[in-house]
């Protein structure tokens, strides 16, 4: 049974799977984001408290979610690679890191833009914002560590360990609004019980979230192809694939 898994994780297989999945992910992402943007920016009713300013949630919330999702993916892939010595795990982690960092930056910037009308300030040192900023630093640390090693295999392993160590921050970010008196609003979707948002606002948000996730998948698959080719450049199948 394990041989099946190892075969699944073999570089040529990962390469062809990524190449096949990327266009599908991109297409579905376009649909999800397209619907989400139109329904959310145009058709959803304005918030009774914030008016139209709330609409930035359609970009802010999915990017924040994806920043956590990408980090978790990166950490888990790295852990799998470390424990079971599956090299493609390192490729997934390496491909995922810059995407996650970009999502984090997007979340911080859109959040900052939203903070101005909502709280009167571009930045506040509250638990959620601070821990999201820490997440950005963690991404930077992982990427710098990976590139600091001359031997790429050791760099991968070191970055994977750091990724796992930093995973502790992810639940802190998520639960910070629950555990501390935070300026940031509480969880509206990811909580037990019914979400505290009306349907006309909720569906576009969920669609954007799904769209962002599929977009992440598409970009990940594209980057993964490049990573696999780069890492396996000495292998026969790569040379044959390039020549064909």
């Amino acid at each position, binding site marked *: 049974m394990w041989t099946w898994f190892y075969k699944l994780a073999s570089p040529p297989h990962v390469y062809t799977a990524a190449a096949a999945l990327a266009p599908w992910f991109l297409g579905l992402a376009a649909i999800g984001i397209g619907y989400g943007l139109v329904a959310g920016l145009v058709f959803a009713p304005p918030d009774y408290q914030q008016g139209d300013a709330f609409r930035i949630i359609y970009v802010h919330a999915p990017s924040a979610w994806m920043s956590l999702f990408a980090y978790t993916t990166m950490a888990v892939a790295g852990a799998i690679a470390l424990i079971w010595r599956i090299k493609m795990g390192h490729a997934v982690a390496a491909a995922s890191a810059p995407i996650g960092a970009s999502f984090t930056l997007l979340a911080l910037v859109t959040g900052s833009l939203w903070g101005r009308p909502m709280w009167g300030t571009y930045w506040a040192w509250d638990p959620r914002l601070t821990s999201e900023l820490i997440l950005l630093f963690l991404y930077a640390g992982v990427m710098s560590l990976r590139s600091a090693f*001359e*031997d*790429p*295999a050791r760099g991968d392993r070191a970055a994977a360990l750091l990724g796992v160590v930093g995973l502790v921050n992810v639940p802190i970010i998520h639960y910070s609004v629950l555990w501390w008196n935070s300026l940031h609003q509480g969880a509206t979707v990811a909580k037990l019980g019914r979400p505290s948002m009306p349907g006309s606002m909720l569906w576009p948000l969920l669609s954007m979230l799904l769209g962002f996730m599929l977009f992440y998948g598409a970009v990940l698959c594209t980057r993964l192809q490049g990573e696999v080719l780069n890492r396996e450049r*000495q292998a026969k199948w790569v040379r044959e694939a390039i020549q064909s």
Partner: protein
Amino acid sequence: MKRVVGELGVEKVHVWRGDRHVLKGVSLTLRPGEILHVSGPNGTGKTTLLRVVCGLLRPEQGRVSWLGKSIAAIRDEYQAALAYASHEPALKGDLTALENLRFSVGLKRRVAPAELRASLERTGVAACADLPVRVLSAGQRRRVALARVLAMAASLWLLDEPFTNLDAAGADLVSGLLQSHAAQGGLALVVAHHDLKLDCPVRRLELAA
């Protein structure tokens, strides 16, 4: 001295360093009383092989076994039974020779200072026992490192270029120590550029580029 029980097996070990295929399917076996001389041009992976056998470096393919079991499974037990002398003498400059020995050998087994002094005497550096290592010459440091290997009373000796910085008398000393180690049933893997001139039979593994 108790009868040495040990058998080292290296099966088809492959190691890549970045893009370089350093070790290409190296295999060897070593039994009590045998000395293996690993030789080859620069860059053929002699030190890498030694580090794989130590258990510091995990090979991408292949396995190293001690007494039939993979060393990854019995790592601590295995490393307690070996003594590794690297290319550098690996001594703390601020500690005396005796303290260096005490803090390394003392982690493997309880040993009295008198026994450590005896080891230093045997390698000809008894006078340096209470001097900080940083004032010793390169040759003296090498002898202190050898004394450490002796004092560990290990079954398996892994020596990387043990003749470096030693004069003719020093080289004879190393040869003598290897011979008596083998005579007592110990195993030794020696990486050296020159031939080993020993009275006992020495097997040879030549690594090619």
